[in-house]
């Protein structure tokens, strides 16, 4: 499989234009739409993290909602209890999730395929109950959850809170995407993919499977945790029932739709899981999930590469003269 190559001038300019377009987008939208796009960017960060683990490294996680919850609660507790500024909660959320992810990744080394899916699925199902646990109520606010304040734009910038938060989230996302791109295009990325496709051969070539796999788990959780923290700040609220097993499943839907083992897939997947339920909700409360299920089947049977690989095929056809 081809990893993303170097950055030639044309691609660089293209990327910059995309980021620029995204940056001016909120000035053409209402505050509510801006908020929705902020959430889409949050999902893109999470899907990027999940894709590093599941797409590139082949470790199936059905439990990333748990890390999303840990990130969200870290941000909420730090802001609510300790008065930490919102931007400073991100490194904390990332770090804590990295530790949790790394620790969960250590036993996960011994679990492969179905078993890892099973263990992470159990984690996803148990998460809301853990968050409601009485002994933790003092911190987590129990069933009620925690309400937090939406941050004001700094330096008296003439922006609405929603637009500022959008730009802030976009900035974080761009940084995280560049970091992920740098991790994945070189030696580390090749090692992760080799461990996914040919674990025995990779180990024989001197790739340390234990280190790479558990670190991949940690980094993946770190991305998800930062996404969770940003999500909590954007929604201004965390509560146990926002982090059910279905949240974890929707992340899986996102990476399958967007494209496994692609960076841009995270964006397509995020747009899908953010906006499709919004439209489908109007038909029935159950409709989004019925659509998710059907879409999962369609993508697995007909286009296992997801939107990203499809687009890649289309552009290749157009550019080939």
């Amino acid at each position, binding site marked *: 499989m081809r990893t993303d190559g170097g950055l030639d001038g044309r691609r660089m300019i293209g990327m910059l234009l995309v980021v620029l377009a995204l940056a001016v987008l909120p000035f053409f939208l209402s505050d509510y739409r801006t908020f929705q796009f902020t959430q889409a960017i949050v999902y893109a960060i999470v899907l990027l993290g999940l894709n590093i683990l599941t797409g590139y490294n082949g470790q199936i996680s*059905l439990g990333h909602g748990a890390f999303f919850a840990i990130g969200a609660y870290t941000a909420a507790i730090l802001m609510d209890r300790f008065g930490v500024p919102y931007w400073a909660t991100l490194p904390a959320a990332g770090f804590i999730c990295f530790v949790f992810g790394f620790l969960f990744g250590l036993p996960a080394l011994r679990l492969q395929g*179905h078993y890892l899916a099973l263990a992470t699925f159990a984690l996803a199902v148990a998460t809301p109950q853990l968050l409601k646990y009485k002994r933790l109520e003092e911190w987590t606010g129990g069933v009620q959850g925690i309400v937090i304040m939406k941050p004001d734009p700094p330096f008296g910038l003439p922006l609405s809170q929603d637009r500022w938060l959008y730009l802030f989230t976009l900035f974080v996302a761009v940084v995280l995407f560049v970091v992920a791109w740098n991790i994945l295009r070189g030696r580390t990325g090749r090692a992760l993919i080799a461990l996914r496709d040919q674990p025995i051969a990779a180990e024989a070539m001197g790739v340390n499977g234990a280190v790479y796999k558990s670190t991949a788990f940690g980094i993946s959780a770190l991305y998800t945790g930062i996404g969770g923290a940003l999500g909590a700040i954007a929604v201004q609220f965390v509560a146990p029932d926002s982090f059910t097993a279905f949240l974890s499943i929707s992340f899986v839907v996102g990476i399958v739709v967007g494209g496994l083992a692609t960076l841009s897939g995270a964006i397509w997947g995020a747009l899908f899981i953010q906006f499709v339920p919004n439209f489908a909700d109007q038909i029935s409360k*159950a409709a989004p999930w019925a659509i998710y299920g059907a879409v999962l*089947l369609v993508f697995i049977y007909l286009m296992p590469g997801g939107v990203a690989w499809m687009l890649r095929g289309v552009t290749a056809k157009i550019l080939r003269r």
Partner: protein
Amino acid sequence: MEAFLHQILSGLAAGGIYASLALALVMIYQSTHHINFAQGEMAMFSTYLAWTFINAGFPYWIAFVATLGVSFVAGILIERIVIRPVERAPVLSVVIVFIALLVIFNSLAGWIYTYTIKSFPSPFGGSFFPQNPYMSPHEMGTIGVTFVVLILLYAFFRFTPLGLAMRAAAQNPVSSRLAGIRVGWMLALGWGLAATIGAIAGMMVAPVVYLDPNMMAGVLLYAFAAALLGGIDNPFGAVLGGFIVGVAENLLGAYVIGTELKLTVALVLIVAVLLFKPSGFFGRVIVTRV
């Protein structure tokens, strides 16, 4: 002492349900090495079917048998239509297909029957069993049904040619095919049986937890724990695991940690078994040659 005994016995009743669902998981795992994440939601949907039959005015046991029949056929159809195309696909694709099934059944149930909680009748009325302070009639009935299912399954696999063919297909598909067994159809039959057993578990648990589209999440988790504990390729181990997990859950809930962390107990149990004894008590230890 009476309370303690009561906890153990009602743990056995819950264990019977976990054992049935674990048995359904084993049925599919044995032949394909797939863990069916949708097993719980399939059982939930079957239970809704039973509810429909009962509400249409059928007597309980006729609705019961009709549900089993429909579930059996549905299980076969799912295997033929949905699972067969990914039979040789990578694990990730298979897991995603199972997740898709889970989501589809859950949302279909929500769409058709709404998310409001419904009560589901128990067939074991007051005078069905002798009154006693230890177990409710429904709990005794559940254990009874579990054992009937076990005996029937044992007899089927042990004494009928079809049962033998199914075992052969699971153990050695290549030789079985050479011997003239239609391996693909045996897999489909396994799915049908698993769906049927799941339906029984669903109908037994519904009077206790009430009928709603998410009712099986906890039960499925405990069934996973049970199947892993007993060894996920061993039916007897899975049943024993089911009873052990049921009793342990009840005792822990009553005396040690309370009921609010029940799912976490299942999570810890699953991870612990996978880490320290991945083959369970009675499973085959898998040795991979490098």
